[in-house]
């Protein structure tokens, strides 16, 4: 029997062998044939961490950093490590209630679907909070601080210019061709946006090992596949931070803008828009709250009026009108116009002139110095009705060509996003308005910088540069150099380094006549307030009428105070345009502001009179009254919309009850709105404003 069964040992061995071969075949299949598993294993375990480079720094013309990097801290939580935890002590320390604490922890767990991965508990702690937590961190296992770089503005100035960064949104990602990923930061406005590629540097990659809970546990292959990040390069700008600070101080509580250019380079020395904001408000822990407040303010502090404010230039336009007429040969520098105090040649006696004494417009120079409206209305008509053109349309088109050459009515191409072109109307606009039948009398106030003509302060300052340079300009821009400039950078900056000889065909005589006139404006005309001892200043004041529509009525607002100037006359180093809304005469506010800035820039010191003026101007509140009413209306409308959307009447209640106290029932008179300002911040507006599809930050 055993002998007989001996053969079965072979069968048993065969079974063993066959089973092993089946296993081996499957191993062959898994390990050698299907190639997908190593990739799956890599996906499982290797995490490509993006290493963010330090963002480039922005310097002013003297090498001071005006936009820098700093470290702030995020409080991270790893829910699984919270053990023996004194929740009450923690909540007291971090100033939150226990319910909120529990809610946040739940959210973190829900978001990660596990409890072992660290997540942000509170982003960007305030320095006080950070210090407080650091002292007590040993008591709270599971919580840790993690460094997070943020942008800081050491001088608290130039928010409109420098811009800010924020997390990319879906549109940014799409626009970049998926170069950016969720969670990346991108320059959203200002120089941060325009020079994004320079400032951001090159991202690095670090390959890390993660475990089955997505925890990072170490480097992959000791980092041989890693790529180091390359820090962003610095921008060297023309900005003069002292000048900028001074200008911002002067524009406190004023609506308007100041632009100071270097005519020789087109470099922007200072650019201020009022009302202003502190750029650091939009970086730190409170940034969302602050942003909501700023974006809902009807005074639009986020709006950069220097490139987006459209102002009728008023009399500041007159030197340009003179140059056009001189170049077309319709007048000579000795041309005079008998002005009796109003312009009578178009029948209705408009425009009126502030001067009526004979001879105040006896020649070009005098007419500029006295800012004679009749003279320039007539000069405009002469230019448009020039017999060498077929008709008024042809003449007007030609005149518009001059305006565009001066940089009006078109985008200059400054290195900031969303510059406005303002408006120089074309013939179609008048064809429409006058049903095709109009002549030079219809729009003669264009000659004094009114009618449909508007210009941004930047365009006005640039026009001053053209006059100061006698015909050429460089595109106004901020960035002078980029650190370790590459070919790409040079290509980017070349358009700012190109000289635009747009109006050099106008004779020097013509320029000299106008410049002399502008000098007279300072020495003996309307801008005597801008006189600086030892420096020949050329300037022109402007006082432009303007209107707004409020509560369905067109109301006339106080005049805008406009002022343009450049200095010194023979070797111009600075050209300035100032617009102060609803402030009255050009000389009253624009004049001293421009003078102080010129003094600061050219002399580096201020005369005693100017030092006093700085304080006086800074402390003057020129905010137009109608904003208060507008704010009240906007806020209460928003509260109503909020109520409609959410049925949450708490905000509308405030307005109603407020109204009730101020105005006994029955009266439909609007309440005094000053106190409503405090309600603005209390609205959950951030979400709301996004729903409305507003631009994240209007630059």
């Amino acid at each position, binding site marked *: 029997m055993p002998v007989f069964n001996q053969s*079965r040992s072979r069968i*048993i*061995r065969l079974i063993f062998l066959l089973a092993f071969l089946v296993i081996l075949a499957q191993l062959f299949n898994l*390990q050698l044939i299907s190639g997908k598993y*190593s990739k799956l*294993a890599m996906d499982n375990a290797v995490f490509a961490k993006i290493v963010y480079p330090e963002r480039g720094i922005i310097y002013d013309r003297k090498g001071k950093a005006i936009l820098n990097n700093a470290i702030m801290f995020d409080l991270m939580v790893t829910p699984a490590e919270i053990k023996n935890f004194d929740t009450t002590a923690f909540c007291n320390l971090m100033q939150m209630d226990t319910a909120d604490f529990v809610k946040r922890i739940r959210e973190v767990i829900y978001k990660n679907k596990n409890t072992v991965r660290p997540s942000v508990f509170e982003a960007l702690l305030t320095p006080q909070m950070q210090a407080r937590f650091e002292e007590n961190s040993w008591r709270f296992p599971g919580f840790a601080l993690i460094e997070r770089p943020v942008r800081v503005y050491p001088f608290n100035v130039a928010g409109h210019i420098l811009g800010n960064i924020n997390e990319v949104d879906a549109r940014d990602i799409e626009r970049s061709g998926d170069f950016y990923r969720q969670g990346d930061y991108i320059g959203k406005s200002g120089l941060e946006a325009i020079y994004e590629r320079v400032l951001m540097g090159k991202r690095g990659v670090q390959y890390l090992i993660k*475990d089955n809970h997505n925890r990072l546990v170490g480097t992959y292959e000791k980092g041989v596949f890693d790529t180091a990040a390359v820090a962003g390069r610095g921008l060297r700008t023309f900005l003069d931070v002292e000048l900028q600070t001074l200008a911002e101080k002067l524009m406190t509580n004023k609506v308007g803008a100041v632009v100071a250019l270097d005519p020789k380079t087109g470099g922007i020395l200072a650019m201020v828009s009022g009302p202003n904001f502190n750029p650091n408000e939009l970086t730190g822990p409170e940034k969302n709250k602050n942003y909501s407040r700023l974006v809902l303010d009807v005074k639009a502090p986020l709006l950069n009026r220097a490139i987006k404010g459209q102002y009728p230039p008023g009399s500041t336009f007159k030197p340009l009108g003179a140059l056009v007429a001189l170049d077309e040969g319709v007048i000579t520098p000795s041309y005079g116009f008998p002005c009796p105090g109003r312009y009578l040649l178009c029948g209705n006696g408009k425009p009126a002139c502030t001067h009526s004494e004979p001879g105040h417009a006896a020649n070009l120079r005098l007419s500029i110095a006295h800012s004679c409206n009749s003279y320039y209305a007539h000069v405009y008509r002469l230019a448009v009705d020039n017999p060498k053109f077929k008709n008024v349309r042809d003449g007007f088109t030609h005149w518009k060509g001059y305006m565009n050459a001066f940089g009006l009515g078109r985008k200059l191409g400054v290195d900031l996003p969303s510059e406005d072109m303002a408006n120089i109307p074309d013939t179609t606009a008048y064809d429409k308005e006058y049903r095709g039948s109009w002549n030079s009398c219809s729009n003669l106030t264009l000659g004094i910088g009114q009618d449909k003509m508007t210009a941004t302060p930047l365009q006005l300052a640039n026009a001053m540069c053209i006059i100061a340079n006698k015909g050429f300009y460089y595109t106004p821009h901020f960035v002078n150099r980029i650190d370790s400039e590459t070919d790409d950078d040079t290509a980017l900056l070349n358009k700012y380094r190109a000289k635009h000889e747009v109006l050099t065909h106008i004779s020097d005589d013509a320029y000299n006549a106008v410049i002399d006139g502008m000098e007279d404006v300072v020495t003996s005309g309307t801008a005597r307030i801008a006189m600086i001892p030892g420096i020949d200043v050329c300037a022109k004041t402007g006082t432009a009428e303007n209107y707004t529509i409020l509560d369905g009525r067109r109301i006339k607002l106080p005049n805008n105070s406009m002022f343009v100037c450049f200095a010194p006359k023979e070797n111009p180093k600075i050209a300035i345009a100032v617009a102060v809304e609803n402030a009255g005469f050009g000389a009253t506010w624009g004049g001293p502001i421009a003078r102080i800035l010129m003094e600061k820039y050219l002399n580096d010191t201020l005369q005693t009179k100017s030092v006093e003026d700085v304080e006086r101007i800074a402390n003057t509140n020129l905010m137009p009254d109608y904003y208060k009413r507008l704010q009240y209306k906007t806020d209460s409308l928003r509260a109503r919309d909020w109520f409609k959307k959410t049925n949450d009447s708490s905000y509308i209640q405030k307005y109603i009850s407020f109204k009730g106290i101020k105005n006994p029932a029955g009266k439909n008179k609007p309440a005094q709105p000053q106190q409503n300002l405090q309600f603005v911040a209390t609205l959950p507006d951030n979400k709301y404003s996004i729903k409305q599809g507003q631009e994240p930050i209007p630059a």
Partner: protein
Amino acid sequence: MSQRNPAISKGIDYSLVWIYLLLVSIGIMAIFGATYRDGDPILQSFFGFKTDYSKQFYFFVAALVIGLFILLTDSKFFSATANIFYATGIFLLLLTFPLHTSISGTESIIKVGGFNFQAAEFCKITVALALAKYLSRPETEFTKTRSQLIAAALVLFPAALTILQKEMGLALVFFAFFLVMYREGLPSGVLIIGFAAATLVVATLLVEKNTLALVLTGIALLIVFSMRRQVKRQKAILFRVILLWFVCVSIIWVGVPFAFKHMLKLYQVERIYSTIGKEVPTEYIEAHNKDKEGGGGGKKKDTDYNVRQSKIAIGSGGAIGKGLLKGTQTRYGFVPEQRTDFIFDTIAEGFGFAGCFVFLSIYLLLLFRMVAVAERQRSVFSRCYAYGVAVVFFFHIIINIAMAVGLAPVIGITLPLISYGGTSLLTFTILLFILIRLDADRQMVLR
């Protein structure tokens, strides 16, 4: 191994000892590869009894000591006490029912001091001994059905108890002993029937029930038709065919559904279906949910996560592997239970197909050596025991690796001499060293 003592070392099969040492070393290395954390001082943690590989090392030392004791024992001791051991084993299994710990998922573990004792593991040894003892009795005539039934009962009784303790995997191991009986004269038919039944069950899972029944009916009719002449002469053939057809069809229609609905746990059903890559039929899920009276039935578990990760680990090893301590799958917790049930992944990921080939060759060498050793025994007891050891090893190895590569459902059984765990290592050491002891005295005839 104690070369200076001629009494012990005489007749010892050193090839088995060397393969044993080699495998345990590979095991410790694999555990080291799976659980070593960068930066730990290697030597310190190796001897500190803190880490898993250190523990396994000390288990190894303990196993060696016990192995040495076994080698010092008189080989007659094992045959003489085999029945007592078997009785003890059964007693301990019974004792487990009231005394088992409350570890979830199993009721097979008794805690003695700091150690977990699993009677079912111990029974592998006692059943191997007792079966050998029974088959080697002079009065046993294994050709008789009665003896075959007694031998089967010896094996199936502890298996049944183990199933009751919810240790499906361990219970299955006992079925391996039928291979021993086969070697000793169990009719081939039994093995073939067993294999055919297994095939039928798998086919039931893979093919739609009614289709399969129809195919079987067709086959039965074909057989009857082709054998119609014999059938005319002998009606019994027709009867047998019809009986066979009836048994098969009832397995398909009644047996498998019953087992899946009432005998197996839902997770086991899920694992089986995930191995063949199919969804669990809703009727089974419903039946299980009904058993639980509706409670907690809606929770969907990712049953094939383990196997998927295990396959990724093995597959990512490629031809030559990533190297020791480089396996990302096995080192960062993606493969669950990977010190024990899925330890093969560490080797496969670290050393690739080449490494697996060498590793499997070592195992196959061990098995073939055991069979060769078995065949050279004069004593039936030693031969039967040797076969018993060989088939237990074989079964463990094949099921464990098949599970890791996704060919078998996940049932938690260890990889002999490799997996982490003192009990497993000790069991296999004892099994092997008794074999070595018996083989050393192969000139003697044991009863």
